[in-house]
C-alpha cells in the first residue's frame, strides 16, 4: 500500500494503531499491539511477564549459566554459605544450589506445560459436551466435576500420587487430573448459552453431527475464557508440584526439583538457612510472576473489563 508516510517519528506505532487498517494482518497486529499496551500500562503484569521471560531464558540457557552440575556431589564443600563461588551456597552433598535452582526451572516449566496441555483440553471438552447435550449427560458429568471439586486439590493429588506411586510423571498426571474441573465449569456455562443460538441450529440443519458441533462450533468460542482461567491457575500448579515434591511424592532425588530441595534443607533450616530458603524464594518469585501475568492477561483479553 503506497499511502503517504504519516507525520510521526514513531511510524511503526502509527501503523499499528491505524484506526483504518489496510489489511487483515495490520488489523490483527494492531489488536495485539493494543493488548500489549494495556498489559504494559499495568506495571505488575509487566513484572510478571519479565519473570516468565526470565524463567524461559534460564531454562533454555541452564548449562551456560549454572556453572556447576546440578547433581554432581562435592563433599569438600558441604553446606557452604553463599559466596562468590556458590551464589546460593551448597547443600548437604556439596551441590551448588544456584545451579540446582537454575536447572529446576526446566522441571517447573515442563510440569506447568504438560499439566496445562492435559487439563485444559480435558476440561474444555467435558464442559462443552455437558453444556451442549444437557440432560442426563450434563448431570452425570457435572456431578463427577463436583466430586473432584469437593476435595482440596492438594489432598486429591496426594491420594492419586500415592496410589500411582511417586515420581514426576505420576505427579504431573495427578495434578492434571485434579485440575480440569474448574475449566469444565467455565466452559459449560458458556456452552449453555451457545447451544440455544441460531447458528448451532443452523449447523444441525446443514447436517453436522453432534461431535462436529461440540468440537468445531462450541469449543472455539469457549476457548478465550478458559485460557484466562488457565493463566490464573498456573501459579497454583507450581505450588502443588512443589508441595508434592516437598512431601517426596514428586520428582525423585537427585533431580533438582524446588519442592524437594526445600524439604531436604529442613533439617538445617536454622544453621544453614540457604539450603531451604533459596529454592523457596524461587518458588515464591515464579508463582507470583505467573499470578501477576494471569491478572494482566485477564485485563487485556476480557473486553468487559476495559
Amino acid at each position: 500500500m503506497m499511502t503517504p508516510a504519516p507525520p510521526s517519528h514513531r511510524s511503526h506505532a502509527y501503523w499499528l494503531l491505524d484506526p483504518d487498517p489496510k489489511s487483515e494482518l495490520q488489523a490483527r497486529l494492531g489488536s495485539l499491539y493494543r493488548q500489549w499496551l494495556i498489559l504494559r500500562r499495568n506495571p505488575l503484569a509487566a513484572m510478571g511477564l519479565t519473570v516468565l521471560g526470565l524463567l524461559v531464558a534460564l531454562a533454555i540457557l541452564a548449562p551456560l549459566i549454572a556453572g556447576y552440575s546440578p547433581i554432581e556431589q562435592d563433599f569438600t564443600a558441604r553446606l557452604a554459605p553463599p559466596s562468590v563461588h556458590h551464589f546460593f551456597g551448597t547443600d548437604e552433598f556439596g551441590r551448588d544450589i544456584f545451579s540446582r535452582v537454575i536447572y529446576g526451572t526446566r522441571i517447573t516449566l515442563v510440569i506447568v506445560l504438560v499439566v496445562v496441555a492435559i487439563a485444559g483440553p480435558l476440561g474444555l471438552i467435558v464442559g462443552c459436551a455437558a453444556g451442549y447435550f444437557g440432560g442426563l449427560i450434563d448431570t452425570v458429568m457435572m456431578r463427577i466435576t463436583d466430586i473432584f471439586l469437593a476435595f482440596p486439590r492438594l489432598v486429591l493429588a496426594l491420594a492419586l500420587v500415592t496410589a500411582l506411586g511417586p515420581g514426576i510423571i505420576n505427579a504431573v498426571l495427578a495434578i492434571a487430573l485434579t485440575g480440569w474441573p474448574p475449566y469444565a465449569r467455565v466452559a459449560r456455562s458458556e456452552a449453555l448459552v451457545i447451544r440455544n443460538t441460531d447458528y448451532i441450529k443452523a449447523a444441525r440443519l446443514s447436517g453436522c453431527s453432534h461431535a462436529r458441533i461440540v468440537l468445531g462450533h462450541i469449543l472455539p468460542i469457549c476457548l478465550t475464557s478458559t485460557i484466562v482461567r488457565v493463566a490464573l491457575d498456573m501459579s497454583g500448579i507450581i505450588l502443588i508440584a512443589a508441595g508434592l515434591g516437598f512431601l517426596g511424592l514428586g520428582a525423585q532425588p537427585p533431580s533438582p526439583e524446588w519442592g524437594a530441595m526445600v524439604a531436604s534443607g529442613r533439617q538445617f533450616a536454622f544453621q544453614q538457612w540457604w539450603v531451604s530458603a533459596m529454592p523457596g524464594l524461587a518458588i515464591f518469585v515464579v508463582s507470583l510472576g505467573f499470578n501477576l501475568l494471569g491478572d494482566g492477561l485477564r485485563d487485556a483479553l476480557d473486553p468487559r473489563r476495559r
Partner: protein
Amino acid sequence: MKAVPSAAAEEMDGLLRVKNLRINFNSNGRTVEAVRGVSFTMGREKLAIVGESGSGKSLTARSFLKLVQPIATVTAERLEFRNIDILRQTEKEMRRIRGSRITMVMQDPRYSLNPVIKVGDQVAGAARLHQRISRGEARKKAMQMLNSVHIRDPERVYELYPHEVSGGMGQRVMLAIMLITDPEILIADEATSALDVTVQLQVLSILDEQVRMRGMGLLFISHDLNLVQRFCERIIVMRRGEIVETVAAADLRKSTHPYTRGLLESAPRIGGPRTDLPVLNRAEG
C-alpha cells in the same frame, strides 16, 4: 401466471409427499397437538405456507428434516422425500439428507452464522461436510457460490466475519451455504422477515433465480400474504396445525374461505381507508 399442476401431475413429480402428519408435544402428562393431520404433495415448485404465529408452519417444515424437539412425537401415514421414508431414517442417514438434499435458511442472518468463523469458510465448510473435496477445491467452489448469490467481491467477502457483513449480505451468504450442496428442496423459514424491504426484494430475486436455474423445490414459510402471492406459485394456508385451504397464488384474492379472507383483510393497504383494521375472528369453527 403459470397453470397450477393437476393433482395427478403432482403425484408423478412429487419431491415430498406428506399424508396425515401429526406432531404432539407431551409434557407433564399433558398433550398438546401442534400439527393435526397435515397432508400435501410438493413438486419442483415454489410453495408457500402461510399462517399466524403458532399455526405449526415451521414445525411442519422442521419435521421433514427430523429436527423437532425431543419431547415432540411425529407420526404420519406417509412422510416421504423422493421415496425415502423420513420417519424410518436413522440419525446418521438423516445427516446425509440434511444440508445436502434438503436445506433450510433461517430468519435472521445475524444469529444463524457462527460469529467466530469467516463467512467464506462457513460456505466452504458446508461443501466439505457433504462432498469429498479438498480444502482448495472447497474454497474455489465457495467463491463461485458467493459470486452466484450476487456478492460482487467474493475474494474480500470470503475473509470477513459475520459481524462485518450487512443483513442482506449475511442472508446471501446463508443462501450460499444452503445452496452449495445442490439441494433438491430448500426451505426458507421466514428467510426475509428480518431484512428491510429493499434488501428483501434483492434476496428474493436471488432466491427466485437460483430456484429456477437449479430446478429445485422451494418451501417458503411466511406470514406476509402480499409477498407470498407475488413470489410463489401455490399457497397453503395453515391455522392451528391444520391446513385451511390450498390455493394457487393467482387466485388468493378470490379466495372465499372466511379465514383466508380474514387474514387478507387484516393487512393494511397503501391508500386504503384509515379506519381501524378488521381483527381476525378467532372463534372456533
